[in-house]
């Protein structure tokens, strides 16, 4: 997962900082899901067939 986020940051510079804090934890307003299940562990292994979704709360109505 950490590698995936690093790669994402290479493609979209600065995006990792929006999701991960200085201590390396997922920011509390962000949520990461692997194949629909919530993940809190950046050491979690993911494969090329896994679907990773990163979302944050929306407020619009």
């Amino acid at each position, binding site marked *: 997962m950490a590698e995936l986020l690093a790669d994402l940051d290479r493609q979209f510079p600065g995006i990792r900082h929006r999701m991960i804090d200085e201590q390396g934890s997922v920011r509390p307003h962000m949520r990461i899901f692997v194949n629909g299940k919530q993940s809190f562990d950046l050491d979690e292994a993911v494969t090329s067939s896994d679907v990773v979704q990163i*979302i944050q*709360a929306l*407020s619009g109505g």
Partner: protein
Amino acid sequence: MVIQEIGVAEVAARLQRGESPVLLDVRDPDEHAAGCMAGALLLPRPLVARRISRLVPDKDTPVVVYCAVGIRSAMSAMTLIGMGYTQVWSMRGGFDEWQRSGHDWIVPSLDGGAMPLSAEQAMRYSRQLRLAEIGVAGQAKLRTARVLCIGAGGLGSPASLYLAAAGIGTLGIVDDDSVELSNLQRQIVHATARIGMPKVDSAAEALAALNPEVCVNRIRMRLTAENALAILADYDVIIDGSDNFTTRYLVNDAALRLKKPVVHAAIQSFEGQLTVFAAEGAPCYRCAFPEPPPAEFAPSCQDAGVLGVLPGVLGVLQATEAIKLILGIGETLMGRLLSYDALSMRFTELSLRRDLKCPACGTGPGKKRSPQVGASQ
């Protein structure tokens, strides 16, 4: 053997004249429950031979038999004539023709007692009364239900319209804004002619025009930590269609305390999220999102823009979940977050986890201090 047929107009005329033939409905019970002729006796076709003598002991009693279109009634009439009944007619075209011709009909109550629905209500809700999951009993539940829409905006517009159309008895609408021109691209409960009018009044006007039977409570105020518990307490289901995080946390905390289910939806640009936070044992809003994003990462619809149809999709889904909750049917989104991307036209289901340390609903060791109702963090 000759079966006499009678047209619906002639039956109506005889009833009008004060004649009182036995009206024998030989359809199945579910067809009868969805609507029948006033005063009809239900005797499904397979039971006619066995039970008719108990229902109609005098074989010279005039009997008009009807079914849906006139086939089962003809066969039943044949059975009755074969058993010695002397005045039997099969109603041509059946109940379908009776309804098409605009004659009065009713929805019978489950216990055969007083009518729970007027003929007009029976017609208004006829398409959902036919659903086995709703029927007369379900419609009665909808009629006694009280639903609160937080916000009469993009989400609240379609949600309140469909809830009113479905016959929800009481709809509360909380909003302190007035209708603006820029609302009308998505807030379809309002209208150009009502620009400047308080949204609760504008919505009440539209909902009354759609279904005058619905009682609309206009609550023209902003939901605050002071009034939230008192406002939510009067309702069975809460629809969160608010437009800011402060109100969303407030709705969560108040509803948790009152043990009321919240049908939550939120939108931005081309994206939407939908779930149900339903009291004990399930994740709440703070479990899903413990903190709001920093303001710069969470622009409002005003700043970020929004596809007008987007809240339509999400708001209609909110109404669907509310109706399911009221009726106790199907499987709600409790514990599941439905994420919608209008650009790729994909719905994705994400599994939400209850946080035992959640400050609002947690029960486990290490639970954070309970926030005041509505504290943003």
